[in-house]
C-alpha cells in the first residue's frame, strides 16, 4: 500500500470506560478513496472506535491521525496532551459522521441542517452554501424536501439529509455508525444505494454495518472486531468465501 495517501491512521488505540476495557489496542489504516466496513458482534467496541476517530471519546493510549494530523491531542515532548477545543473542532470539520439515530437538528429545515456547518463553521457565504445544499439534497433524492423540518420526514429521508449534512463539509473521511439499523426495509435500500454511490465515487468511508450485502458490494476491505480487538481483516471475497478465524465464522454464520 506504499504510495497511497493515508487518510486515517490508528495505532494501538486503547479505551476504557471505568474498569471496562472497550478497545484493547486497535490499529487500522485507511487510504484515500477506500471504503472500510467494520463488522462484529454488538458490544465489541465498533461505535466507540468510530467516536474516538473524531474525538467524541478521549482515548487512553495510542494515537489516531487524520490526514497526517494527530486527532484530539498535541505532542508535547514525548507526551500527548489534549488539544484546545477550537483545534479539535477544526479537525472535526474534516471528519463527517452519520449516526444510527440521524441526529438531525429538529428546529431547522432540511436545508438549514445542511447549511448550518458550512455557514457557521466554515464561514461559507450563505448563497453559496444554499446552492450547494440544494445540490446535495437533490443528489440524495430530496429536492422537494428542502424546506421540510425533520419531524415531517421519514427515517430514510432523515438519514439522507444527515448524509447531505456530512457531505456539505467536504470531509476527508466519513464515519457511518450503523446508519441503516434504525430504518425500515425499503429505506435501508435507499440509504445503502447512496452510500454505495459515494464509495464508488471515491469518498473515503469507514462503515460500521450489519448489512453484509453492502460490505460485499462496496467495501474495499472488511474488518472484523471482537471484544475490543480487530481479529481479522481482508477483502470481501476473503471474508465471505474463506474466513479464517473461528469467531468470524461463527459471527457470519449467525448474520448471513
Amino acid at each position, binding site marked *: 500500500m506504499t504510495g497511497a495517501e493515508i487518510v486515517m491512521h490508528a495505532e494501538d488505540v486503547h479505551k476504557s470506560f471505568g474498569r471496562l476495557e472497550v478497545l484493547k489496542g486497535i490499529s487500522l489504516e485507511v487510504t484515500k478513496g477506500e471504503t472500510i466496513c467494520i463488522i462484529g458482534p454488538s458490544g465489541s467496541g465498533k461505535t466507540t472506535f468510530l467516536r474516538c476517530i*473524531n474525538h*467524541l471519546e478521549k482515548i487512553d493510549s495510542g494515537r489516531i491521525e487524520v490526514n497526517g494530523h494527530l486527532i484530539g491531542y498535541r505532542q508535547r515532548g514525548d507526551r500527548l496532551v489534549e488539544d484546545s*477545543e477550537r483545534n479539535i473542532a477544526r479537525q472535526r470539520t474534516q471528519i463527517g*459522521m452519520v*449516526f444510527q439515530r440521524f441526529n438531525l*437538528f429538529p428546529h431547522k429545515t432540511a436545508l438549514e441542517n445542511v447549511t448550518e456547518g458550512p455557514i457557521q*463553521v466554515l464561514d461559507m457565504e450563505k448563497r453559496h452554501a444554499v446552492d450547494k445544499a440544494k445540490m446535495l439534497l437533490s443528489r440524495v433524492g430530496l429536492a422537494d424536501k428542502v424546506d421540510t*423540518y425533520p*419531524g415531517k420526514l421519514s427515517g430514510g429521508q432523515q438519514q439522507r439529509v444527515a448524509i447531505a449534512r456530512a457531505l456539505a463539509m467536504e470531509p476527508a473521511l466519513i464515519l457511518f455508525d450503523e446508519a441503516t439499523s434504525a430504518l425500515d426495509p425499503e429505506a435501508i435500500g435507499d440509504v445503502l444505494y447512496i452510500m454505495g454511490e459515494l464509495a464508488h465515487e471515491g469518498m473515503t468511508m469507514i462503515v460500521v454495518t450489519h448489512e453484509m450485502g453492502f460490505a460485499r458490494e462496496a467495501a474495499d476491505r472488511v474488518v472484523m472486531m471482537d471484544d475490543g480487538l480487530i481479529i481479522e481483516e481482508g477483502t470481501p471475497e476473503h471474508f465471505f468465501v474463506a474466513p479464517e478465524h473461528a469467531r468470524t465464522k461463527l459471527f457470519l454464520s449467525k448474520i448471513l
Partner: protein
Amino acid sequence: MHALVAVDLHIIWQQVFHPHSVFFRTLWATVYISIISQAAGVLLGLLAALARMSRFAPLRWISGVYVWIFRGTPVLVQIFYIYFAFSWPTLHFGFWTVPDAAIAGIVALSINEGAYMREIIRAGIDSVDRGQMEAAKSVGMTYGMAMRRIILPQAARVIVPPLGNEFNNMMKTTSLVYTIGVFEMFAFAEQNYSQFFIADYFLAVAVWYLMLTTVWTFIQAYIERRLAVSERGDELSFRERLQAAWNPMTSWARGGGG
C-alpha cells in the same frame, strides 16, 4: 351603612381608571424592576446552569453554593442585606432616574431569581437529546456554538413555560422592595393608605397587579403557542405562524397533513 367590608367604589374607580400621574411613575417602576430583574435572573441562571455542567469542579461547587444559599433564605432578607451592606449608586438616563434602592432591589431580585432559573434552564438543557451535541460537534462546532445554535433553541420550549410563571411571580415579588424605600406601585398604595386610612387603595393596587399578570398570561400563551407550532415542524411562514398562534385550529389542520 357600615358593612363589615366597606368598599369605597369611588376610590377604586379613581385609582384604577383615573390614577394620579404619580401613580404611573410607580407603575413604571414595578414594570422596569420586574423586567430587568427577570432578564438578569435568566442570564445568571444560564451562567449557573453552564457552571453546574462544567468539567471544572470549582465552578460546579460555586453554582451549588449559590443555589443553596439563595433558595434557602428569604428573599426579603436578601433584599435588606444587599441594600444595606453595600452602597449603591443612583443612575440617571436622561429623564429617567433609577434610585439606589431600586438598583439594590434589582440586584437582589436578579440574584434570587437566578438561583431558581438555574434549575429550570438545566432541566431544559437536559431535555435535549445528547445526540444533538454530538451532531453539532461533528460538523465542527465548539461547545459554545453548539449550545447557542443547537441546544438552547431546543431547550427553550421546555424552559419558556416555567419561565413565564417565574415572571408572573416576579411582578408580584417586586412589591417587597417597597420595604427598602423604592417608590413602586405598592409603595404608592401604602403611602395613600397611611395618609387617608382607606384600605381600598390596596384593593386598587391589587387590580393593577392583576392587570399586569393577566396581560402577561396572554403574552405567555402566545409565545408558547408559537413555540409549539415550530416544534411540530410545520412549514409555515411567519405570518401563518402568527395566525396559527391566535387560532389553534388552523395549526392543527396543517399539522395533520403529511
